[in-house]
């Protein structure tokens, strides 16, 4: 524990570890967020990768960052700007300069701020701080590289291996700054490198020496203390959105008593879902890496036909490729969960950046009238709930469900209370042999439950229910292919009604904030953390304002229209050019109150910008 340093108690703090792709910043960041969570803080993280290729060492393109926000409570997102920046080289400083708060600490490695390093980052002068006009910050130069090396002298490691521990030395300093006990970090390192004890020892050594260095010189900066908070009792882990999505599907399969099948094809930033599920053979999960996205979805459609909880995971360009097959799933009314972890488009766009521009594609990207369910997850941990719910709806209503996630929540993590499956609702698929109330011989594959309009599921292997399905239009009653005009109209209506009906089975839309506000902020998907904090700040500023966040997009919750009508101003904030806003306008033409707040930069929203913009909107521009 630092003794003679100035210690400040604060509510929240944002730290960004930044360096070359090879500098191990993702590991420092992950360790720091995990140990903070274990220590009792709320956390939110934002790994910000460079484009997918390794760039030349020290270049601006090669900068890899990991941002962690920790706090006593109300940590809804990873933060706009940083209080502490760890900059392993000049490129890292340059790339992050505009995100530094006033007075923030910049911890940098003096060994890698030499002329040649500055050149690589295209600095013109020898003083990067001045060149960037950073006069409002506290630079803390530490010879991280050389100290790490001397720390590990005699460790038996090769030079290259020693250098890889720089990130731990830096982390040690940060731990000192934030008063984190090192034991947790030590244990995490032991787990991580379980098979390479030499590496464990070296990492712990570098970490400890970094910590001690901070302690010894107690730098020139103030240190922070963030107190652990009281959270609900129970066991916790931290989880990112992709892992949580994978877990949600596993949980739903377990709950439904079905085997989980995933047909997929790697694509940033969705690949982790495939990778996580490929590991889960212990749960009997069948996760197939197929030859492309079309085979990913069609193998899943085959598995759905054969009686699995079937899913497919992808990102925008992959969803485009799945369009035709999605129509088949709509037409055959098979249960299928399609996960789209959105990234910046159009086309290949910016694969490692996040946005919300696939909503239209999810709603409309198919030929013909082909309605399906669209949902969006709100946060890393909400990915679990959303994936579970998506699976439940797919199975119980015999329909494809598209679940939108995004790169920001997919890679970002939060602390997560480990769920007890007993607390989750049952999942009851409409198996024909259990739910159809007549002789097997009378059954036809498109007969429906009168109430829900859901057809029954006859799974291959079940005696007496052999049948044929397909992509052609079929007779309402007999299920035989038909091109009768009136029948087609009826089937078009029924398929739509079946989806609309689902509104009865999802929760009503809730509103946060002031009950008597005139202005409603509307969000959907992975922006919840930022909108939540924006709400709090606006209210701190004395504004009356309400906020609602949509998880269910098609169908919309039953009370949506009535709810939106209550406000004279509805601000729809999204990371696209207004897709949800237009959708609402199309659904509710009498609604003339929508203002759009759109930002498509491939970066998370900034709370400060939103507070300003919304305030102006509320004041009537």
């Amino acid at each position, binding site marked *: 524990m630092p003794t003679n340093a100035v210690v400040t108690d604060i509510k929240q703090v944002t730290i960004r570890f930044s360096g070359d792709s090879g500098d191990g910043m993702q590991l420092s960041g992950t360790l720091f967020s995990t140990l903070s969570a274990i220590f009792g803080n709320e956390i939110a993280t934002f790994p910000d990768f460079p484009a997918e290729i390794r760039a030349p060492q020290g270049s601006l393109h090669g900068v890899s960052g990991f941002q962690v926000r920790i706090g006593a409570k109300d940590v809804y997102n990873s933060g706009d700007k940083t209080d502490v920046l760890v900059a392993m080289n000049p490129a890292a400083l340059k790339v992050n300069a505009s995100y530094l708060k006033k007075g923030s600490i910049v911890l940098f490695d003096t060994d890698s701020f030499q002329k040649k390093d500055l050149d690589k980052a295209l600095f013109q002068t020898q003083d990067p701080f001045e060149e960037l006009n950073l006069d409002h910050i506290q630079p803390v130069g530490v010879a991280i590289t050389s100290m790490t090396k001397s720390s590990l002298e005699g460790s038996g490691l090769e030079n290259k291996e020693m250098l890889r521990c720089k990130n731990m030395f830096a982390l040690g300093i940060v731990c000192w700054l934030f008063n984190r006990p090192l034991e947790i970090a030590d244990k995490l390192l032991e787990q991580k490198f379980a098979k390479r004890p030499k590496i464990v020892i070296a990492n712990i050594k570098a970490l400890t020496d970094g910590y001690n260095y901070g302690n010894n010189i107690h730098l020139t900066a103030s240190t922070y203390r963030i107190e652990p908070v009281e959270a609900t009792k129970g066991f916790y882990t931290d989880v990112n959105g992709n892992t949580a999505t994978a877990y949600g599907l596993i949980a739903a399969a377990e709950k439904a008593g079905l085997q989980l099948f995933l047909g997929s094809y790697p694509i940033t930033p969705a690949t982790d879902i495939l990778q996580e599920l490929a590991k889960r053979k212990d749960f009997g999960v069948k996760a197939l890496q197929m030859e492309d996205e079309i*085979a990913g979805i069609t193998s899943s459609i085959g598995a759905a036909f054969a009686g699995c909880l079937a899913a497919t995971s992808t990102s925008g360009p992959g969803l485009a490729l799945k369009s035709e097959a999605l129509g088949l799933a709509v037409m055959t009314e098979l249960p299928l969960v399609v996960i789209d972890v959105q990234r910046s488009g159009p086309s290949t766009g910016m694969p490692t950046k996040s946005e919300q521009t696939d909503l239209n594609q999810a709603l409309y990207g198919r030929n013909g009238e082909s309605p399906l369910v669209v949902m969006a997850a709100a946060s890393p941990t909400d990915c679990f709930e959303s994936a579970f719910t998506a699976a439940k709806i797919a199975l119980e209503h015999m329909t494809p469900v598209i679940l939108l996630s995004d790169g920001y929540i997919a890679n970002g993590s939060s602390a997560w209370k480990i769920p007890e499956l007993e607390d989750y609702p049952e999942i009851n698929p409409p198996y024909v042999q259990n739910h159809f109330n007549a002789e097997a011989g009378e059954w036809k594959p498109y007969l429906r439950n009168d109430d829900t309009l859901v057809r029954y599921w006859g799974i291959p*292997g079940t005696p007496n229910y*052999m049948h044929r*399905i397909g992509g052609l239009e079929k007779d309402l009653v007999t299920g035989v292919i038909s091109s009768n005009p009136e029948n087609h109209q009826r089937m078009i209506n029924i398929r739509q009604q079946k989806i609309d009906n689902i509104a009865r089975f999802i929760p009503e839309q809730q509103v946060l904030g002031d009950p008597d506000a005139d202005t409603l902020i509307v969000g959907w998907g992975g922006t919840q953390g930022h909108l939540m904090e924006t709400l709090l700040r606006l209210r701190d500023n004395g504004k009356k304002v309400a906020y609602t966040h949509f998880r269910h997009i098609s169908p919309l919750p039953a009370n949506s229209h009535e709810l939106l009508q209550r406000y004279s101003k509805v601000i729809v904030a999204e990371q696209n050019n207004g897709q949800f806003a237009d959708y609402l306008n199309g659904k509710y033409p009498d609604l003339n109150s929508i203002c759009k707040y759109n930002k498509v930069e491939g970066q998370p929203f900034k709370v400060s910008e939103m507070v300003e913009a919304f305030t102006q909107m509320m004041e009537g521009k």
Partner: protein
Amino acid sequence: MEATEIKYQKYLAKDYKSENAVRWCPGCGDYAILTCLHKALAELNVDPHNTAVISGIGCSSRLPYYMNTYGFHSIHGRAAAIATGVKVANPALSVWVATGDGDSLAIGGNHFIHAVRRNVDINIILFNNKIYGLTKGQYSPTSSRGFVSKSSPYGTVEDPFRPAELTFGARGTFFARAIDVDMKTQVEVMVEAARHKGASVVEVLQNCVIFNDGIHNKISDRTWKADNTITLRQGEKMLFGKENEKGLVLEGWNLKAVTIGEEGYSLDDVLVHDATTKDNTLHMKLALMDIADDLPVALGVIRSVDTPSYDSDYERQIAEVQQRTPKKSFTEFLLSSSNVWEVK
């Protein structure tokens, strides 16, 4: 084979027929293929409810409607991928794919070669009429160079795929060929295809009376069939001709058709068919025989090599992992993962 274990109750061909009226053009070769599949399934004695027939789009792909089994008439080109999902999801099913030359070699080419490479235990019946039937007569990837069709009014300028060659190029472990009108051979090879573990490709030379009538005449017509085709049988001499008076011999790298007793060739010179060798050199030569080279077209099972199928290996791997790791509930699994802490 899980799906075809012997049952005491016996099925007849008619038990596999659905109530749907068959709707191909009168005289279409597809009728014969359908009948043969009914017969083959009866011979295999597989439960209709444990059978799944998957197809894409095309005249040929209408087949599942006429089967009293589980059936899926899907979208163009994707049957092999869907069937992969069906089989891996439930390896106990007997899974068949009905597909056309356009469906599986044009739009579906990628799924076809990958299903073959993975060796998924599915049986692919490839209706090769060398034309797009359903869309009314465009050339297909199996149409010969120079073929005139609605979409190639001046003749094509591309060589066709030869299904056997592509199958072998994708490491295929089973390939057989039959003619629509030759129902006996067809039933035989379908039965063999089902018995083979892994991806089986059965090419049926099928006549489209409307848009490509007679394309296989040179080999399917009675007048020439005996001389222009050879039906290969495991362990038997490669003989053909009306009186089995001709045979295939090896000359250097090449196959040659000879008349026994002529040019000094005796029965001993005639090759014996072995579909089971891992090396596919001879299978390839047999499969590519062409009357243009004075060689008969090969029918029957040309290659059949047993190697573990993808689906069975997948099951095995799951079983191994589950044996190694004690069974846990989902919550137990999460609790046992790293980075867990308790708030008390």
